[in-house]
C-alpha cells in the first residue's frame, strides 16, 4: 500500500482527480488504492474497528459524490479524514440515541482502543499502545494524524477545530507522554 501522502507522488491527487473527472476511471481506482488503508487506520484510531470497512466505503462514497467541492488547498487525504471523522461522529450520535449509551467520551475511546489487546505481541509495541491509550482524545487524534499519517499541523487544526500552534503543543505533549511511559517501562 502506498504510504506517500499525495504531495510528492509521481501523480498528485489533484492530477488524478482531474483525470478522473475527464473520464479516466482508473484514476479513481488509484485514488482509492492510495488512501483507503490510511482512512481505515484513522477510523481504527478513533475506536471504530468493528465498522472499519463500512466507514471507509461510506467515506469514499461521500467524497466521490462531492468531489467537485474538494479544494486543492488541503490534501485529498486530509479531506477524506475529515469526512471519515464526521461519519464516525454521526454514527455514534445515532448509536447513542438508539441504545441510550453515553456519548463518545474518553472512556468510550479507551474501551475501543482496548480491542487492540492480544493483537500486538511485541512488548515495546504493547508499551507504545498502552501509552497511546493514556493520551487525551485530542492528544491521541493529533498524534495519530501527525505521527502516523504525516498530516501538517495546519490541516490537523482544520480537522479538530483548533489552531496549528495548539496542535503542535498537543503533538509534543503526546510525544513526551509516550516517551516517558515507554522509557519507564
Amino acid at each position, binding site marked *: 500500500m502506498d504510504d506517500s501522502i499525495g504531495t510528492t507522488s509521481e501523480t498528485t491527487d489533484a492530477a488524478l482527480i482531474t483525470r478522473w473527472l475527464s473520464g479516466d476511471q482508473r484514476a479513481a481506482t488509484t485514488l482509492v488504492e492510495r488512501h483507503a488503508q490510511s482512512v481505515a487506520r484513522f477510523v481504527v484510531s478513533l475506536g471504530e474497528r468493528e465498522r472499519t470497512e463500512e466507514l471507509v466505503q461510506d467515506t469514499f462514497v461521500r467524497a466521490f459524490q462531492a468531489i467537485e467541492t474538494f479544494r486543492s488547498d488541503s490534501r485529498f487525504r486530509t479531506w477524506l479524514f475529515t469526512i471519515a471523522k464526521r461519519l464516525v461522529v454521526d454514527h455514534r450520535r445515532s448509536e447513542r440515541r438508539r441504545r441510550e449509551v453515553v456519548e463518545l467520551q474518553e472512556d468510550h475511546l479507551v474501551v475501543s482502543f482496548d480491542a487492540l489487546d492480544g493483537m500486538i505481541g511485541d512488548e515495546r509495541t504493547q508499551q*507504545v499502545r498502552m501509552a497511546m491509550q493514556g493520551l487525551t482524545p485530542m492528544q491521541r487524534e493529533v498524534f495519530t494524524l501527525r505521527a502516523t499519517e504525516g498530516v501538517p499541523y495546519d490541516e490537523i487544526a482544520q480537522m479538530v477545530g483548533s489552531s496549528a500552534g495548539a496542535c503542535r503543543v498537543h503533538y509534543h505533549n503526546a510525544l513526551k507522554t509516550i*516517551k516517558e511511559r515507554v522509557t519507564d517501562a
Partner: protein
Amino acid sequence: MRECEDVTMQEALPTFRAGGLDAAEAEAVRTHLATCDACALELALLTTARAVLDRATPVVDVARITAAAMGARTRAERTSVAEPRVIQLRTRRWWGSRQLLAAAASILVVVSLAIPALRGTGHGPAVDGRLDPMVAVDATGGQGGEAVTPSIDLAGGLAHLSSAQLETFLKGLDQVEATVRAEPVTIAFPLIDSPELL
C-alpha cells in the same frame, strides 16, 4: 534520552516517516539521523506507533470500495441529469393548470350571466328586448311622488333613445351587473326552499 536541539529536523520526522518530503529534504534527514540518537529513537517510536495501528487495522477491500463509490456517483449523476426534465414537467403541469383555471373561470362567468337571463324572474334585460321592470330605475329619481318604472323599447336600437332614457338604460345595466355579482347568494335559498326539490 537527550532531546535533539535541531527543531527543524525533529519537526520533519513525522513527514519523513510518512514519505512526504522531497528527495533533498529526505536526504538531509537521513544524514541527521546517522548522527542523532535522539531523533533516531524518536523515529523508531513513530514507526512503532504506526505499527500499533497497522496491526489493528483490517485490510480493506479496495475493489469493493471503488465499485461502491463509483456506483453511487454514477447514480447521483443520473439523478442530476434527469432533474431538469422533472422541472420541465412541473412547468408544463403548472401551465396546464393555468389554462384549466382560465377555462373554468370563463365558464363560471358565462353561467353567471346566463342564469339571470334564463330565470323567469331573473334580473336582466328581457328577452323581448325591453328592459326588465325589476331592473328599471325610478324615472323620478325615487325622491317622493309615485314611483314610475318606465319600459324602454330597444327594438330600434339605442340611437333613438333620449338622454334620459339612455341614462335609465345604463343604470339598469349597472343593476344587472350588481345582481350578477350577488347571484350565488341570491339563487341559493330559493333553490333549496323550492317545494319541487324537497
